[in-house]
């Protein structure tokens, strides 16, 4: 119980640090943000309005405190361009991103688990080398190149899938593959190496000596033990799916928070940039903490040590 409280406190401190970092990003804008947004020839009244909208008329510590008070109420400020609360804009776009992330994550689990297990079971076999080759290529192929390649192959050559957008059925497939491939590759490697590591443990020899079949050794002893590091990696990836979605959404004109972020950057809509970055960073932290909790719950050794 005490360790759970300590973990919670720890998470709160990290969340505090991350949001402070996001707040400080606004300070990095070179020169006067009002000049940057409106141009130097803007009218004085407009400049004042923008100044107070961004909170620039107040000293930094005060802005920082306001930032947190607003954040507690779920208020991320208003968009400078669209005259709409940032939180509302994000909520409109979030479902599309979550749909994409869920599809990519499902792909990671469906591809990586069987492939990793298969590679570990058949170590040294040419299919193992093939799986490892897939993993290496998947890690090395940038998603902003993979996306156009897939479009060229499956939309243009075969005409199987739509080129972009999310309106037609089947339009989810290519973005999900683009987003999920590198993560599937990392997870495949992790599953394989983790299983091979468990393989050398004495308790597996004991299980085999008891006369258990290979199948039940795998299901009852190898997998549960090998899954712990895999769960941690999956947690890391669940969090980075949202960050990875930024580029994927731009490639496929997918109307989620990633393309919202990039549009906002182009329009210098700083409150929206801040809001989206904050949301992605916070969900990354929470996903990692949840996977740590899950791993601890599954593994009495970590629970005891935590």
């Amino acid at each position: 119980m005490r360790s759970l409280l300590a973990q919670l406190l720890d998470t709160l401190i990290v969340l505090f640090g991350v949001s402070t970092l996001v707040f400080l990003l606004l300070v990095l804008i070179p020169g006067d943000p009002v000049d940057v947004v409106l141009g130097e020839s803007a009218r004085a009244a407009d400049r004042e309005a923008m100044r107070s909208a961004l909170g620039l008329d107040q000293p930094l510590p005060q802005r920082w405190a306001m930032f947190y008070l607003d954040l507690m109420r779920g208020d991320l400020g208003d968009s400078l361009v669209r005259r709409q609360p940032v939180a509302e804009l994000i909520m409109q776009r979030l479902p599309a991103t979550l749909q994409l992330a869920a599809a990519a994550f499902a792909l990671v689990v469906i591809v990586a688990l069987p492939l990793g297990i298969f590679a570990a079971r058949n170590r040294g076999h040419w299919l193992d080398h093939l799986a490892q080759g897939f993993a290496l290529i998947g890690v090395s192929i940038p998603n902003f190149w993979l996306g156009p390649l897939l479009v060229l192959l499956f939309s243009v050559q075969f005409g199987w899938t739509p080129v972009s957008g999310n309106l037609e059925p089947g339009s989810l497939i290519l973005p999900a593959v683009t987003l999920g491939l590198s993560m599937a590759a990392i997870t495949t490697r992790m599953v394989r190496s983790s299983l091979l590591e468990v393989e050398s443990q004495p308790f597996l020899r004991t299980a085999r000596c008891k006369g258990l079949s290979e199948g039940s050794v795998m299901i009852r002893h190898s997998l549960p033990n090998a899954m712990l590091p895999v769960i941690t990696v999956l947690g890391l990836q669940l969090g980075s799916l949202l960050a990875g979605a930024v580029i994927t959404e731009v490639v496929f004109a997918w109307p989620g928070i990633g393309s919202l972020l990039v549009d906002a950057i182009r329009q210098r809509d700083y409150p929206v940039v801040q809001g989206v970055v904050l949301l992605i960073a916070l969900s990354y932290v929470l996903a990692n903490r949840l996977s740590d909790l899950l791993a601890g719950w599954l593994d009495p050794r970590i629970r005891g040590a935590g």
Partner: protein
Amino acid sequence: MRISALILTVWALMALAGTLPSLEPHLVSLPEIFAPPSADHWLGTDELGRPVLDRLLTGASVSLFVALTTVTLSALIGISVGLIAGYFGGGIDRVISRLIEVFLAFPGMLLAIAMAAMIGPGIDNVIIALAVMGWVGYARLVRVQVLALRQRDHVLAATALGRTNLAIMARHLLPLVMAPVWVEASFGLAGAVVAEAGLSFLGLGIQPPDASWGGMIRDGVRYLLVAPHLVMAPGVALFLVVLAANLFGDGLRDRFDVTSRNMR
């Protein structure tokens, strides 16, 4: 490891060739737009009739320069911070550890995008944004190792002999923590190349008309159906370089890591 070294050497040579004054990466030639690869233009021309090969070579210089500078800068910052935290411990270590934790809690690419969005595009700003994202890996690595090495006899002996803190860190700790730093730097090189290209792809990195692999892919995507070579040339180059840096990192890790070498 030999293949990866070969690809990385080719990359370096391309980068070197990219600085040749005879290249014409900005030469617009409207009669020749979207020309397919030919004897005149080995990789064809782009939407303004500019030679893709010349732009690819210039892009190689940009990516190599950004990657090397980023990795060097990140490593210098990260190693110093990690050494200080691990060696001095106590309050300094607690503060630095929290800082490391906060930066690690950020998906790296997101931080780079956010930084670049705020400080603006351009090659200097890309390097700054990528170094802000990159230092933390080295810091964590070095800190953990220094914590373990601090009580070793040779460090205690150096302390007893009255060596300064700086001398102990530089002469007695740093050489012992470098092996994993080289591995991290190798993966960091791959990461920096992808990140620079990614930022340029999003329009946050190298600005047109200057050539960069990410920018070439972004521009090429618009003409994917007419001229796929515009996306293929920089994409293949980028993929091979990243693949080689990753392979090189794997190779280094196996070479340095005695336990995993024995297991194989």
